[in-house]
């Protein structure tokens, strides 16, 4: 159930992203709703399906984007790995972890995108890409992170209800 529900949720977020969010950029940067959702979901302590969400999100984005198909899948799995590392080892303040994970996740996805596009022959300028796309996207993703964490927290509590001691 917790895995299957990723398909409609991430699908709706992707539709929202392509139809609405991509049309209202800040400079040239836009929010990556699917990535923020995967991070918010993976950070919930009770969640056991983070990897599945990463794969489903990557496949959905891979179908839609003109980026090489494996890049979103690989990128989101890297992000999930990073989030699980943060969740297990370091962070006791989940909100702060959400912000840190969003920051690092945006850097990972954008770094991979720029690297792969340059490798495949697209003449992208590092400086221009970072200034015009990555930094504005980072700001928007951080703004979306807080409400996303709250919403996916509620979803996790609904799907994984706390066990009561009798």
């Amino acid at each position, binding site marked *: 159930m917790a895995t299957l529900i990723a398909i409609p949720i991430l699908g709706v977020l*992707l*539709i929202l*992203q*392509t*139809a609405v969010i*991509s*049309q209202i*950029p800040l400079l*040239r*940067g*836009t929010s*990556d709703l*699917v990535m923020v959702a995967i991070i918010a979901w993976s950070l919930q302590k009770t969640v056991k399906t983070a990897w599945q969400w990463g794969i489903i999100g990557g496949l959905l*984005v891979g179908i*839609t*984007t*003109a*980026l090489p198909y494996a890049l979103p899948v690989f990128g989101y799995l890297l992000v999930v790995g990073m989030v699980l590392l943060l969740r297990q080892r370091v962070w006791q303040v989940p909100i702060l972890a959400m912000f840190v994970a969003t920051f690092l996740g945006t850097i990972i996805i*954008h770094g991979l*995108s*720029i690297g792969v*596009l340059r490798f495949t*022959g*697209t*003449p*992208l*300028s590092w400086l*221009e*890409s970072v200034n*015009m*796309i990555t930094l504005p*996207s980072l700001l928007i993703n951080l703004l979306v992170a807080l409400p996303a964490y709250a919403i996916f927290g509620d979803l996790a509590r609904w799907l994984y209800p706390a066990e009561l001691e009798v």
Partner: protein
Amino acid sequence: MERLKSRTIQTVILVLVIIGLIALALGGYLTPLSRYALAPFISAQTWLSTRFQAIQSYVAAPQDTARLRQHNLELEAENSRLQSEIIDLEQQLSETRILQALVDFARVNPEDRYIAAQVIGRDPSPFLQYVLINRGSDDGLRRGMLVVTSQGLVGRIAAVTAGAARVQLITDAASAINVRLEPSGAQAVLKGSTTGDLSLDMIPQEASVQIGDLVLTSGLGGNYPADIVIGQVTNLRSQDTDLFQRASVQPAVDFTQMPIVLIITNFRPVDVTPLIPTPSTP
């Protein structure tokens, strides 16, 4: 007898006085007198009437307020309905204008066959300038077909599914198009960028290019047909030490406001790769 006579005289005098007063009143001679005489009565009546109306209004107010509130709610609902109807009609008008422009464009170029499609989204990656359209291989679309609007060239189809297609815009960083500048006739290469700006490269130094020159597809390379409008030169950079001139281009198409596009279905790109000589070719 004496009493009767006296009363008759009194009555006659009274009647005469009344007739006199009426005659005076009809002649308007009593107006100033009546004004002073009636003023206190009018003031008193006004005072009393004002108080009565205030009390009546106070007593009747709750019913009126409720009725007015209900009326107000009805009017607000009517207003909302009319507002949404106006928005709907404006949207229809806007779409009709766009379609009319596209039909005019198609009439001007009768040799081409077109399919209209709606732009339904953009690529989720901000590094790419692609749009998604709601027509696919079921509608006869193929990879490489050209996408235009009535203003000019939009791009070409990069990927197709049964019901949708992905269009690479000419502003995409990976896009490069052979173009011709008018009226100079100079050949150049139009390139997109990460920021969505268009620039011209490889303009020969001897070419006499001016700001405002028209940029059209040249047809070289076989990927695009000739003479499709792209935009205008807005800025020219030329140095004696450079091999080529460079220029910035203002696209004719507004890529942020592009709800409907046309796909030219009878154009097939020509693959010239086998004709390009390689080092191993004798």
